[in-house]
């Protein structure tokens, strides 16, 4: 048997890794990968709490399904934006996208 805190610990570590990726990488595609890692960490938490707290309802799994949907939409639109930016600027490094920077 695996206690709940182990799942929470893995999810927290995965979230921290994703956070580091989002904050430190220059390439927009790599930033998007970091966001995916963070979303996965959240999903682990949702399913772990569902399993240990409310396995007789579907609330945790339903939330996780909606996280999947939003992650898919976010990846599709984000990558489309990245491809469009690359076509205009020949770069996907985030510091080269500075037209709106104050």
């Amino acid at each position: 048997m695996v206690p709940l805190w182990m799942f929470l610990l893995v999810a927290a570590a995965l979230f921290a890794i994703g956070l580091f990726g989002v904050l430190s990488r220059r390439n927009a595609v790599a930033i998007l990968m970091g966001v995916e890692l963070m979303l996965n960490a959240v999903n682990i938490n949702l399913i772990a709490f569902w399993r240990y707290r409310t396995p007789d309802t579907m609330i945790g799994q339903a939330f996780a399904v909606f996280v999947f949907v939003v992650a898919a939409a976010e990846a599709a639109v984000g990558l489309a934006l990245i491809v469009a930016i690359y076509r205009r600027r020949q770069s996907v490094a985030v510091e080269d996208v500075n037209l709106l920077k104050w």
Partner: protein
Amino acid sequence: MEITIELLVFLVFALLTLAGGLGVVLARNLFRAALLLLLSLFGVAGLFVLLAAPFLAAVQVLIYMGGITILIIFAVMLTRGMVRARNVFSEQWDLAAIVSLAFLALVVYLLWQLQQGSSAALFAAPPPEGGLENPIAALGAALVDPAQYMLPFEVASVLLAGALIGAIYIARDDEVE
């Protein structure tokens, strides 16, 4: 703590998840990072199986590993001039490392406090026995039940349609008419 097969399987999948995630963040070659992301997502799918959510594990494999990762690999190849950049990290990477480590330390501290305090029984207890007879059917019913998640379900489908149309419009080549 007693070492069981379940615990060993958990440790293997947790290691896959975290090692894959670290590889994604640290890899210099972006294509390698995408492949390591696949490994990490597979570890998460294994954790879902251990948490008695096999449907979500299947969705994870189909949508994340089969869909989103392939999309990311496409994007990596379409922006191929960027695969081997010399500086993969920005100038503020040290600050980013401090923030991430501080966040991790905060969560671990909170977990430790909760485990010491009133939630000790919850944190150490095994998952409750029983549960639903057929969780996959219950999930399907809950998603189309007006009293439960029918409205979010419809909103999610509208969001997907909007994202689909928006992605096509944004990524379209303006030169080609």
